[in-house]
């Protein structure tokens, strides 16, 4: 029996609004416990929520970026359950009338392009955090995160492998970063993902029994957890056993999924429309306004890099892989007009230096894009050799100085002056008569030897092209 994997993802993206979804408290991460709270997000008696319009704007942005239907009328609903990190005893979310429906994105996995459907995107509030004492049977509640706006993005069960799932996840991550509505930090939990996974005989339409995977806080964990679960389900089914519908937690230390059995009974959340919030009404004018705020999206940008700058697809994809890198490239390009050379440099010398996530790294990188552009410009115009450029770049990385300053300070200017060089060329030819004869006799490979001599004398500063010309002329006679 050939089995097909079916995966759907639920992504929770914390929005980068300055204040919370229903009150004025800050959403900043890392403050002392319970300092970003007020009677509203603490759920005190008699307080009422007021919707932060920025949250709606961010949702519309994502809706537009995923080709979705933005509903003119949507509604908040209460999801009722008791937990100490949920001070009201319900989470204000959306249920049967979400703000966004029927979208899709395009992904590429294993060299194949594919559309993945988005069932719905809805707005909701985040819960707080429980901190359990390691020594005493005591728990503490931190409600700073309570009321932080979230978008829940629910995909169709359109993915057929862990690679596709990760590609989808990365693409959504990229979109959120391009739209600048979520910082995408998986470790801090501002970008979270749960997966629904099942197997069915190839060709069968009906979905198999699914499990839900949680606690995967990096792309690598998602990939590993899905692969583990695919293997586990396949083995079960091939052995004639059944998959049990349950929620599983990924344990990254043991590299396996673990059952949450008992912890999560079948919840009845008793959803009903939230009577404290009026329906969210979005007209065409609002959508048009938000559309104007949309940045160029990764797919469009990648295409433009190919058509406008003549870059290969491969380069364009890497450069547009994060908004920050693409921005960096374009700013550098404004001072050098050598797209391919710049692209080569970024993909090798520049990316080689990167540690951690590209965005934050670029934000604190000492080399501003204009400096890198200037360096490439010097290289392109033959003012310095590739070798010197690499030396200068390393100094730039360390000091943040402009390339010209470094070149002047360290006396690294490339010598292109014909008069200065031709005297040295004559000297070298005269000093090596036998090699000169061999060259004239047709052993043109010796050009390397002559240029090398010149480089030695000039400490690498001679313009290799000029050197070539001068030796060719000198040895022709």
């Amino acid at each position: 029996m050939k089995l097909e994997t079916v995966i759907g993802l639920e992504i929770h993206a914390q929005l980068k609004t300055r204040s919370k979804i229903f009150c004025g408290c800050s959403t900043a991460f890392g403050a002392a416990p319970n300092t970003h709270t007020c009677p509203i997000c603490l759920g005190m008696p008699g307080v009422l929520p007021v919707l932060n319009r920025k949250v709606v704007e961010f949702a519309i942005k994502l809706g537009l970026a995923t080709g979705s239907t933005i509903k003119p009328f949507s509604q908040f609903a209460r999801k009722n359950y008791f937990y100490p990190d949920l001070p009201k005893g319900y989470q204000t979310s959306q249920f049967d009338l979400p703000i966004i429906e029927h979208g899709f994105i395009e992904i590429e996995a294993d060299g194949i392009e594919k559309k993945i459907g988005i069932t719905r995107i809805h707005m909701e509030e985040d819960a707080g955090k429980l901190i359990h004492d390691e020594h005493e049977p005591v728990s503490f509640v931190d409600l700073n995160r309570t009321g932080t706006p979230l978008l829940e993005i629910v995909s169709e069960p359109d993915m057929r492998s862990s690679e596709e799932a990760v590609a989808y996840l990365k693409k959504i991550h990229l979109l959120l970063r391009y739209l600048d509505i979520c910082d995408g930090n998986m470790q801090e939990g501002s970008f979270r993902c749960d997966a629904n996974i099942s197997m069915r005989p190839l060709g069968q339409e009906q979905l198999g029994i699914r499990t839900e995977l949680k606690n995967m806080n990096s792309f690598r964990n998602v990939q590993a957890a899905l692969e583990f679960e695919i293997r586990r389900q396949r083995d079960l089914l091939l052995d004639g056993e059944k998959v049990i519908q349950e929620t599983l937690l990924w344990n990254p230390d043991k590299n396996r999924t673990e059952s949450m059995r008992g912890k999560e009974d079948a919840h009845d959340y008793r959803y009903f429309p939230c009577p404290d919030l009026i329906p969210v009404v979005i007209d065409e004018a609002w959508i048009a306004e938000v559309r104007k705020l949309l940045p160029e999206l990764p797919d469009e940008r990648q295409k433009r890099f190919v058509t406008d700058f003549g870059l290969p697809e491969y380069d364009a994809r890497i450069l547009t892989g994060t908004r920050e890198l693409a921005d960096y490239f374009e700013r550098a390009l404004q001072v050098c007009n050598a797209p391919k050379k710049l692209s080569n440099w970024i993909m090798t010398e520049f990316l080689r230096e990167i540690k951690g996530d590209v965005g934050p790294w670029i934000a604190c990188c000492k080399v501003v894009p204009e400096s890198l552009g200037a360096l490439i410009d010097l290289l392109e115009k033959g003012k310095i050799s590739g070798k010197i450029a690499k030396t200068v770049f390393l100094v730039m990385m360390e000091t943040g100085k402009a390339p010209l300053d470094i070149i002047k300070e360290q006396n690294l200017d490339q010598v292109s002056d014909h008069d200065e060089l031709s005297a040295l060329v004559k000297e070298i030819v005269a000093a090596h008569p036998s090699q000169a004869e061999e060259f004239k006799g047709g052993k043109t490979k010796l050009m390397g030897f002559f240029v090398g001599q010149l480089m030695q004398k000039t400490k690498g500063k001679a313009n290799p092209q000029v050197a070539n010309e001068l030796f060719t002329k000198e040895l022709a006679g």
Partner: protein
Amino acid sequence: MYPYELTIGQALEKLNSKELSSRELTLSCLDRIADIDGHIKAFISVNRDYALAMADKADAAKGDERGVLCGIPVSIKDLLCTKGIATTCGSKILENFIPPYSATVVDRLEQEGAVILGKTSMDEFAMGSTSETCAFKVPENPWRRGYVAGGSSGGSAASVAACECLASLGSDTGGSIRQPASLCGVVGMKPTYGRVSRYGLVAYASSLDQVGPFSRDVRDCALMMNVIAGYDTKDSTSVQRAKPDYTQSLITGMKGVKIGIPKEYFGAGLDPEVEAVVRKGAALLQEAGAEIVDVSLPHTDYCVAVYYLIAPAEASSNLARYDGVLYGYRDMTAESLIDMYKESRSAGFGAEVKRRILLGTYALSSGYYDAYYKKASQVRTIITNDFKKAFELCDVLISPVAPSPAWKFGEKGDDPLEMYLSDIFSISANLAGIPGISVPGGFSREGLPIGIQLQGPHFKEEVLFRVAYNIEKSAGVSDKRPVL
């Protein structure tokens, strides 16, 4: 005449002419409370020092500093948050809860110089029709010992009727202002849903709750509405809409006004004495120039059922926050989280609250949602449409508020259903979101007050004030006070 007997209108004249100080007036009310509240039990808490400080502040205010209620002593239902002052909601679970914020309506009263005397007794979380479910004090009807003051804002109504204060704020989810106003012989208004901010009103059923005033005459009620009505950025369900000066609508004469009599409100179960008072009220209005028309609200019979699905459903969610975690009563002996929830809520809530939480939880449960909550919401729309159609034929509906005058304590206590059915005339206004007012219309042979209910289209409070004012003028009962 003692200062505490004055209406707001009379008191303002004396205060503004310096014939009376707010301190004197406030002390007069505080003494009155000290004298009689031992048996009226209208107040859960009285804040004497705070009240006198506010009174002194009012006495010191000059010119523009003097708000429209400057120096007027009022009481506040204990369901409305008062910054720094305990707000119990009549429940053990919030016995020691002191909010760090005030309800918008309380802020507005204080901005206009009102003096807050204390917090009034009420049914626990406003769930009840007699205030008997209050965990602390059960108010008594000032007109007769051993009789209920009504509910859930029974303490507010009793405090105004017994002249312990000049006016009060209550809340009305299914008649909780109008019914006790009727039973205690004072004026009480439930404004249009969205007319008055709910911020700081502890929620019972959010889509039905509305804050409103109690007063001894219609003009005072209009004055109070002038202060509390209006849009509030903190309440998304409050409506951005200009508010009129309600005192301008107190015009003698009813020419050009059509009064509708809904036939469904005069059927079996209605006390003949109540019916007589209401019919007499209609006749008086007719004499004053009004046209009387018969109208129908065909789905009236469904109101009680719809209300007792929607209100408990919302309550089951609204009251989930009383879990013993952040504030309120917590059982400290519980060994596990689930036990802490169970024990805290079992001990903190009274029987009626638990009954309604269970009802509501059931109505929202998967498998029952469509048959109960959803169906009730659909019928609610039909009931609202009944009113829309009726208001095509008339400007105001006249009807009873409650099927009978006040009754003895415990008389309807054993059968919740019988109690629920007594709300039949008042809950439809909450379901439809329209305004309603109860104005004293007469007395029973036993000497118990009987109110007349007027209901109008959304945001037409001014028409209700006009009609109520004319009833007050002609019925001649508004200056009668209970002998205490």
